[in-house]
């Protein structure tokens, strides 16, 4: 299997998508020694390379963060390019969509697009892995990310064996689809204490911008 991974995060090599990819590949390469091409769409030169990589690979996984309820513009541009290329019908395509929202529900709409897009290209759809709650993994202590990274390694191992995503891990990663009423109530209650804003407040304070956090810079004041 000639596998290529295309990272569509606008943060490129500093992205959470890269971290998840690295763990997927750790698992994958523990069973399959093949060199997997990992390409980044973050600049136009790399977009060009990625098109060639996409064309030549037998199996492609595209990973990106959810941006305004869909794929980032940079990924959409890539989709427009590859939809104009001649593609081998035997190509397999899978996707990994990660987001900062804790629930998977935000990403299930773009999942439908991704499946339809793969069909439009007449490629074989391998499915979409959805994982929420990813923003912040770069500052979380290892104890908080161990389980997540372990699942991505297991996903990579399974992929090396079967060329498919494990249905069991896929289901596990997308939990919760929505918060339970109890968890939603608790989240709402905790948010009133400001605890859920910790990550944002920490960064606002580090940047001396906390006092400006409710600014409305694009609001045009109308004279009365």
């Amino acid at each position: 299997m000639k596998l290529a991974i295309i990272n569509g995060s606008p943060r490129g090599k500093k992205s959470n998508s890269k971290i998840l990819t690295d763990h997927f590949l750790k698992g994958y390469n523990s069973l399959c020694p093949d060199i997997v091409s990992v390409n980044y769409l973050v600049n136009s030169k790399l977009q060009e390379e990625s098109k060639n990589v996409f064309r030549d690979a037998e199996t492609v996984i595209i990973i990106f963060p959810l941006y305004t309820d869909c794929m980032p513009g940079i990924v959409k541009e890539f989709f427009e390019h590859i939809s104009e290329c001649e593609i081998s019908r035997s190509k397999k395509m899978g996707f990994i969509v990660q987001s900062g929202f804790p629930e998977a529900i935000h990403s299930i709409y773009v999942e439908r697009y991704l499946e339809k897009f793969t069909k439009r290209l007449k490629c074989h759809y391998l499915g979409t892995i959805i994982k929420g709650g990813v923003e912040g993994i770069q500052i979380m202590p290892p104890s908080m990310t161990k389980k997540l990274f372990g699942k991505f390694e297991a996903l990579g191992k399974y992929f090396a064996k079967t060329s498919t995503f494990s249905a069991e891990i896929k289901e596990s990663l997308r939990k919760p689809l929505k918060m339970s009423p109890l968890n939603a109530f608790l989240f709402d209650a905790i948010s009133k204490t400001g605890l859920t804003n910790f990550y944002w407040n920490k960064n606002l304070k580090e940047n001396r911008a906390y006092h400006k956090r409710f600014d409305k810079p694009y609001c045009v004041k109308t004279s009365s």
Partner: protein
Amino acid sequence: MKITILNGDMNQKENDFSVFIEKLAGKLQVNNTVTVYPLHEMNLHYCTGCWSCWWKTPGRCAIEDDAGKVLTSVINADFIIFASPLMAGFTSSALKKMTDRFVGLLHPYIKMKNGECHHLKRYDKYPDFGLILKKEPDTDAEDIEIISDIYDRLAINFHSNKKYIKFTDTTKIEEIVYETCNN
């Protein structure tokens, strides 16, 4: 009313879509203030996910390009029209590029809304919007449903409402004018 049209047509010289949008803008201008942004001709960059707009210069994007004037127009409008020929089954990357930049119009803080996490408002009001699209030869009902649902999700996060989805091949300009002005 103030209407902002984001035209995501990427082939404006050889495409009747932009002609349709120009005619629409002309009709809307009779009784409204209309601003049309031909996104593909503007100096617009992709959102880099730097979060400056959330934690360094709250609400303001760090990229110095034309997005600032578009964002100002969007957040002060009474109605937005997202206009785009469909490409690869969705609105164009030019339109998506601009929509991605909306993130700074919201606050990073999260609140529960209908049992889901969504971003808090940064501004007091957000404009409702309509979609004007041009179909591809292979566009089918499933594509339209997917697009419609994704923009409904955008509406939830944008504290807004999607008022209509119209297609240039089946809708008269007068109908869009009516629905835009009577939303």
